[in-house]
């Protein structure tokens, strides 16, 4: 992982990995144009964990889709490692809320799907897949089909599948949104552990403020539509974090600070 770490903060350097420059997205609908995103600007450092929170419909998923290359910005541009992005790329992995596993493939074949499209030998593909399946603790379910797995396990497979591609940027669109509270906290802890072991640049969308604070180094708060950034909060709680971190006063303070801003946006939206 990247070079110049002469800064006061270890494992973060000054050159942004991802630059989001003035991204705007307008949809045309029957009732006229809808501005989903209005001038989104953000620099993401290498291996940084970013969480984006905001009221529903604020355009956070739109921003993620544009980053993934699944949607085009109306104006503005995105640079990854200094190159403007065009369309989807295996460099930018996505974990979807609905898991999006291929039900006709086993866990292992799902994780191998993207790897097989790379110029790798059979053995390499298999080894990489095994490594990441083990990382999410599903080695005993390698040959199971998605229908045999619980929601939490399916999402672990999806995380392994995205991680296995070793993407420059990992995009997660409310990945734990469909899970029950208990599974959700468990997967948060696992994701934290995974990320601490093998750091990736993460852009994680959630509507759960607590989830954002426990995971992220920086939390981006978005306004109600038209979506723009209203605040960026540094979460200066050191890693490793775990569920006990949620008991710390610092955690409470940050969570309340973010939550009140998100709530204001929610009230704004209802007007």
């Amino acid at each position, binding site marked *: 992982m990247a070079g110049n770490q002469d800064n006061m903060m270890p494992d973060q350097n000054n050159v942004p990995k991802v630059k989001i420059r003035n991204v705007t997205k307008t949809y045309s609908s029957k009732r006229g144009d809808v501005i989903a995103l209005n001038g989104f600007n953000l620099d993401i450092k290498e291996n940084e964990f970013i969480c984006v929170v905001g009221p529903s419909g604020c355009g956070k998923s739109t921003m993620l889709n544009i980053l993934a*290359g699944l949607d085009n910005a109306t104006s503005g541009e995105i640079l990854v490692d200094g190159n403007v992005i065009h369309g989807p790329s295996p460099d930018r992995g996505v974990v979807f809320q609905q898991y999006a596993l*291929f039900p006709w493939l086993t866990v292992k074949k799902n994780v191998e*799907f993207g790897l097989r499209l790379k110029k790798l030998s059979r053995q390499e593909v298999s080894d990489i897949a095994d490594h990441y399946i083990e990382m999410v603790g599903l080695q005993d379910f390698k040959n199971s089909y*998605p229908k*045999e797995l619980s929601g939490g396990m399916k999402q672990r497979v999806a995380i392994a599948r995205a991680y296995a591609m070793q993407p420059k940027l990992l995009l997660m669109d409310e990945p734990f949104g469909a899970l029950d509270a208990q599974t959700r906290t468990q997967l948060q802890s696992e994701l934290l552990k995974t990320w601490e072991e093998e750091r990736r640049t993460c852009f994680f969308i959630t509507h759960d403020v607590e989830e954002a604070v426990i995971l992220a180094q920086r939390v981006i708060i978005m306004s109600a539509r038209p979506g723009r950034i209203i605040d960026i909060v540094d979460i200066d709680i050191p890693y490793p974090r775990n569920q006990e971190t949620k008991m710390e006063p610092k955690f409470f303070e940050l969570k309340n600070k973010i939550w009140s801003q998100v709530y204001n946006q929610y009230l704004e939206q209802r007007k």
Partner: protein
Amino acid sequence: MSIQKKSSKIGVPNVVYSIISLGAAILLWLFISSTEAHVVFAKPSEVFAALSKLFESGKLFVHINASLYRSLMGFILAFACALPVAFLLGWYKPLQLIFYPWIKFVKSIPPIAYISLVIVAQGVGENAKVTVIFIGCFLVMVINIFQGVQNVDLTMIKAARVLGAGDFTIFAKVVVPASLPFILVAMRLGLASSLTTLIAAELTGAQVGLGQMIQEASMYFEMDVVLMGIIIIGVIGTILDQVVSFLERRLTSWQETRTI
């Protein structure tokens, strides 16, 4: 989400119910044929006698072979055409907009209505029958496979795309397997439609075939033969359906199914 083995709630094996079901049907048949309905509804023993007579004369398999050949020929040709056409319609929007309304239009016409048209064009031979069966089967299957292609979960396609898949890979590795359950349903409906159309085609005139056999027997008022013909068609339909069920179990067992 837990996976439960399908088992009946009570501790009675399913085969017992199958036997009860079959027994009840035969009892009902015996009852009906012992009333005044006997005139049209022959007794099981009479039907069985007619069956063995036809079997001994060797004509039974002549009829069955002729009918099976026509319906399977029509079905196979229809399937071979429906598969690529349905995928093309699903993949290219303009093709869909141009052709799909016509497919639905012709589909809404019962094949019997255009049988005479085909007979005038192709004569009363085998070709005309295969053509009629082909048309009926093809339309049913195109519509169903097309719906399968349309129903492919968009997030799955997105997932494949961000994993680096191009159009061809998405088609071969995502769209085709995801449509497989619909393809099998289409096969099932296509086979059913091929039998329906077959009998209609044979009733309008044929030298041999189950439909012709029924037609001829009814003219001589041999109701035992008529009933036997009907039952044979039912048995053939069930066997074909079972073949597709077998394929379904082999090929699409990965599907999430509702637990009953």
